[in-house]
C-alpha cells in the first residue's frame, strides 16, 4: 500500500482497512496500545476507536480476545484456553499475605496513603511490601494528599488492570457491594484506638477523593 499517510490527507482508508491496521498494530504489541497511539500510527483521518468496535466484534468468541485495559487495548488469549499454555506460563513470585492485602486495599481505596493502609490492616506496612508491589508495577505513586504532611498516595496501574484482566478500577469485583456496605468509607478512627499508627493523618481521604475515582 503506497504511503497512505501521504495522499490520504483528505480521505481516510476504508473502515475495513482501518480494522486491519488496528489488528496488525495490536497483534504486534505485547503491551496495550492506547487509542491515541493507534490514531497516531494510522494514516491521517483514521478512526481507531470505531475500528476497535468492529475488531472486538470480530474476535468475539475466538481463541484471542480484544480487551480493554484502562485507556488502551490489547489482544489476549481467551482465558478458557489457559490450560493449553503451560509452556507460556510465567511463574510469578508468590506474594506474601501482606502484599496481597495491601494490593487489594490500594485497589479498592485508591488513592490511599500508607497510613491509611496501616489503619485498615491494623499493622504497619513494611517497606518491602510496598516495594514489591511497585516493582511489579501493580501500584504506583498517585498525587499527594492535601492533608498535613502532604503524604504520597498509592494507586493501581494499568499493568495491574492488565494482569487481572480488568477494564478499569471500577470493574474490581464486589466494588459496588463494598461501597454500599460502607466498607470503603474512611471513617476516622476513634481517639485512642490503637490499631494502626494513623495518628497524624488518620482520618483517611476526604470522602470525595474516593468518589472522584469511582463515581464519575
Amino acid at each position: 500500500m503506497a504511503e497512505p499517510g501521504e495522499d490520504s490527507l483528505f480521505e481516510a482508508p476504508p473502515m475495513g482497512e482501518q480494522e486491519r491496521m488496528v489488528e496488525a498494530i495490536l497483534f504486534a504489541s505485547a503491551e496495550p496500545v492506547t487509542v491515541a497511539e493507534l490514531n497516531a500510527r494510522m494514516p491521517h483521518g483514521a478512526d481507531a476507536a470505531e475500528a476497535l468496535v468492529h475488531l472486538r466484534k470480530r474476535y468475539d468468541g475466538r481463541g484471542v480476545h480484544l480487551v480493554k485495559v484502562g485507556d488502551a487495548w490489547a489482544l489476549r488469549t481467551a482465558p478458557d484456553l489457559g490450560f493449553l499454555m503451560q509452556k507460556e506460563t510465567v511463574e510469578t513470585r508468590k506474594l506474601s499475605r501482606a502484599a496481597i492485602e495491601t494490593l487489594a486495599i490500594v485497589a479498592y481505596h485508591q488513592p490511599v496513603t500508607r497510613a491509611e493502609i496501616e489503619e485498615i490492616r491494623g499493622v504497619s506496612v513494611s517497606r518491602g511490601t510496598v516495594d514489591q508491589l511497585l516493582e511489579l508495577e501493580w501500584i504506583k505513586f498517585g498525587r499527594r494528599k492535601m492533608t498535613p504532611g502532604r503524604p504520597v498516595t498509592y494507586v493501581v496501574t494499568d499493568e495491574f488492570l492488565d494482569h487481572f484482566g480488568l477494564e478499569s478500577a471500577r470493574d474490581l469485583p464486589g466494588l459496588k457491594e463494598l461501597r454500599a456496605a460502607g466498607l470503603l468509607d474512611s471513617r476516622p478512627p476513634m481517639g485512642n484506638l490503637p490499631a494502626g499508627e494513623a495518628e497524624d493523618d488518620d482520618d483517611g481521604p476526604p470522602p470525595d477523593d474516593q468518589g472522584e475515582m469511582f463515581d464519575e
Partner: protein
Amino acid sequence: MRRSFPVGSMGEVVSLNTVASVEARRAAEALIVDVDGFEGPLDLLLTLSRTQKVDLRTISVLALAEQYLAFIEEARTLRIELAADYLVMAAWLAFLKSRLLLPPDPAEEGPSGEDLAAHLAFQLERLQAMRDAAARLMGRDRKGRDFFVRGLPEGVARVKRVTYTATLLDLMQGYARIRTRDEFRPFSMDRDRILTLEQALDRMRPLIGFAGDWTDLMSYLPDGWEDDPGLRRSATAATFAASLELAKEGRIELRQAETYAPIQIRRKDGDG
C-alpha cells in the same frame, strides 16, 4: 450496648463473660502456638472473632475483648514475648471493656464505649472485606497464568527524527559573540602584523654596531612597516622596548630632546 442492659441483668453479663472466657482461653491456647503467624493485633482479633460464629456486624465486642485478653494472659503465663502493639491493644481492650461494663461517667469526654466498640467492629469487618476482595482478585483470570500476551511481539521501530532550529537572533548573537571575542584573543593572522620584542632585538643587535652616532630609533623599524599605521605602531613599540633592553645591557644609550621629540640611540663606547 451497655445502656441496653437493664441493671438487673448484670449477672447475666458476668456469666456470659465467664463462658466466653472459658471458650476464649481454650481458643487462645490453640492460637498461641501460632502467634507469629498473625499480622498484628487486628488480625488476631479477626481470627478470634471467628469463634463467635456470627456475622461480624453482630459480633460481641465485649466477648471479643475477653478473648483477646485471655490470649494475652495465656501468652504471658507461657512467657511468650509479644510485640508491643499486641500489648497496646490489650490495654486498650481492657479500657474498652471497663467502658462497656461501667456506667458512663458524665464528666468524661470523648466517644462512648459503644462508639469505640462499633468502630472496632467496623475495622474488623473492613479488614475481612479487604481479605475477601484480595482473594477474589487473586482468583481472577490472570495474565501469564490464564490468559497470555502476544508471544512474538514485533517491536515498533522508533524512528526518531531530530530537527534543529535556530532563530535569527541566535545567529546574530552567535556572530556578535565571535566578533566580540576577537578583541581578547590574538588571531594567528594578527601575529603577522606585529613585531615582537624578540624580533626587534634580533633585528637591532647586528645593527647597533654601526650606530656610533645618534640615530633616530624609527630608522630601525623594518622596511615597509612605517607605511601601515598598524604595523608601525607595533614595530615602534617593539623597537623601543628592545632599545630599553639593550640600554639595560649597557650596549646603547638613549636620549630624547623633549616630550614627543624623536628618540635617538647610540652605541655605548668602549663596548667593542
